């Protein structure tokens, strides 16, 4: 039995822990919620560790493998936000999102290959992808939060504290986007001789980066929730294009060396 066959067991127990944590959060049992959710995330991380050891390479190559990290970071960020800001709905959203990604992985694992092409065998591989996945999860949390604020009540009622949470998530996410992009550029120079080639993946990564940069520059003098939250949702759509959308984009077909 290879490690992928055991995924469903790890995933099921993790989801049970996260759901129990979510219920505890709604019942204002903060410590229990944190312990249960952290337990779920640690179990999920242990699956990634087993996978790493079984494959003999970091599980970061295929879409299915990157979804594992995304799920893990999303759950961790959900708990962290709950622990820090006490939004009891946050674990519910991160659990829901994490469960969706787990279901996608069960239905469409895309983890068939154990090989790692020479270009991916670099010390930059692990930090580049993990940093990006962490950033994507931060942006995912920012988007959920923005949609929540947008839908909850009239936009004028968004408080300074709520904007500050949103800004912090985007700021940290953007810093990690920058780290991921810079690491990718340094790696590309070592692997292909050029740090930027406007490959479709790079072009969409740059567009995503610019879009969040626009939010960060618009925000200080702007409290127009419609503009800001629409921009955050739009940026997250761009991020999805960059992550997996380009695999289906006619303009990128056969033109990207980032399709695995």
């Amino acid at each position: 039995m290879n490690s992928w066959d055991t995924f469903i067991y790890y995933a099921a127990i993790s989801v049970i822990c996260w759901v129990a944590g979510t219920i505890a959060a709604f019942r204002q049992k903060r410590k229990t919620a944190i312990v249960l959710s952290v337990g779920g995330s640690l179990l999920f991380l242990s699956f990634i560790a087993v996978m790493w050891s079984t494959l003999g390479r970091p599980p970061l190559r295929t879409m299915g493998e990157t979804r594992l990290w995304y799920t893990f970071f999303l759950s961790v960020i959900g708990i962290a936000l709950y622990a820090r800001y006490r939004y009891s709905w946050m674990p519910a959203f991160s659990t829901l999102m994490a469960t969706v990604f787990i279901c996608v992985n069960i239905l469409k694992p895309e983890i068939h290959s154990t090989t790692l092409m020479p270009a991916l065998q670099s010390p930059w591989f692990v930090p580049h992808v993990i940093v990006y996945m962490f950033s994507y999860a931060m942006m995912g949390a920012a988007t959920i939060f923005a949609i929540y604020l947008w839908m909850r009540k009239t936009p004028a009622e968004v408080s300074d504290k709520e904007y500050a949470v949103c800004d912090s998530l985007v700021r940290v996410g953007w810093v990690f986007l920058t780290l991921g992009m810079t690491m990718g550029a340094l790696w590309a120079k070592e692997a292909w001789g050029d740090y930027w080639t406007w490959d479709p993946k790079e072009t969409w990564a740059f567009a995503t980066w610019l879009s969040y940069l626009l939010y960060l520059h618009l925000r200080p003098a702007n409290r127009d929730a419609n503009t800001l939250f629409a921009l955050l949702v739009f940026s997250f759509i761009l991020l999805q294009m960059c992550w997996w959308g380009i695999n289906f984009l006619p303009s990128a077909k056969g033109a990207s060396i980032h399709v695995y």
Partner: protein
Amino acid sequence: MLQQYKQTIIRCICLLLAGAALQFLAGPADATLLAYPWGVIAAVNYLYLLIILSSNREKWQWVQSLYNRREYISSIAAMLLLTLLFGTIRQDGAPDGLFGLLGFTQMKTSWIFILFLFNLMTMLGLRAIEEVRLFRKSRLPITIVHLSFFLILVAAVFGSGDKMRVTVTAVQGEPTDRAVTKDGKVLHLPFTLRLKEFSMDEYPPHIYIYSGGTLTKDYVAIDAETRKGSIGAWQIECIEYIDSAGRMPGDSLYRPMKHVGATTAAYIKATDGTRAVEGWVSCGSHVFPASTIALPDSAMLVMPQREAKRYLSRVEIETDGEKSDYEISVNHPATVGSWKIYQSAYDRTRGKWSTITVLECVKDGWYPIVETAMWIAMAVGVVIFIFGSRLKRKEDEK
């Protein structure tokens, strides 16, 4: 809101028209115009001009207007819009249609794209100089990030004419300095390169079922530990495995063989519960043909060519009469003077027995600036992440 952005929108339209006019009159932008020394001269003049503008901002109304928040927001937004077009339009250089006429089918060389990139760089530069002039300790990380990105853009834009990328195809044992550019132009390198040996590590072979023109998604990997597996309803068992094998003409058996052209072969037993087949399966090489095992319903068991784990060229490079040995593999280029040499390809028909190697030699004199700025940006990024909220608090208190 549109009223507030009126001035910036007019400026963007002017840039768009100027870019379109340049595109029609001059054709796609030619980076070689910035080849040494012109790139350096242009960069020095540009930086000097920025400093002059920056120090006269109070005197000149139009310069003052460039420091408006709306100006840099619009420069980011315009760049975002063009980047989205860049990502959406197929970059095949087709000259037809509106996008083709505007150069958007080869965005990298489109004047409109270059002017807006220049615009973003200038806004960033003015901002960075301003932050250095009115230095505030609490804004140090942001100032450094702005400066780093500005340096990256300056080196990327003004250094674009100095990038050189050529391909060398080296045949084992034969020294060569002949390189070919992307356009097929031949030039001679300042060093001579001789391939001493090409070698390749491969992943274990995979057994698939080939049916209806496609391979199954599932496969069985054969290596020292794994000899069994299943593909769909078929149980696959490897009875004998020869990593380096050959088969003499007329022979039905594969035998171990350490010789040029040796291939990989496995004796496989396959059963689906009711039917059973067995035989040799091999990926073949440029010497030996591949072997497959026929299954019912026109399917067959096949072993595709093994995937490369690592390929490496051992080369001797002679510069000014001095010879040095280098090992070049993917992600491990060699540095010779101002050149970097990358492993690119090999003779795929011969695979690990290839006697030629394809190397790419790259020269980019501006890269050290880009690399330094990227490392600084990363370091500051980490600082912002760790101390972000504290920095923000300090900023708010001011």
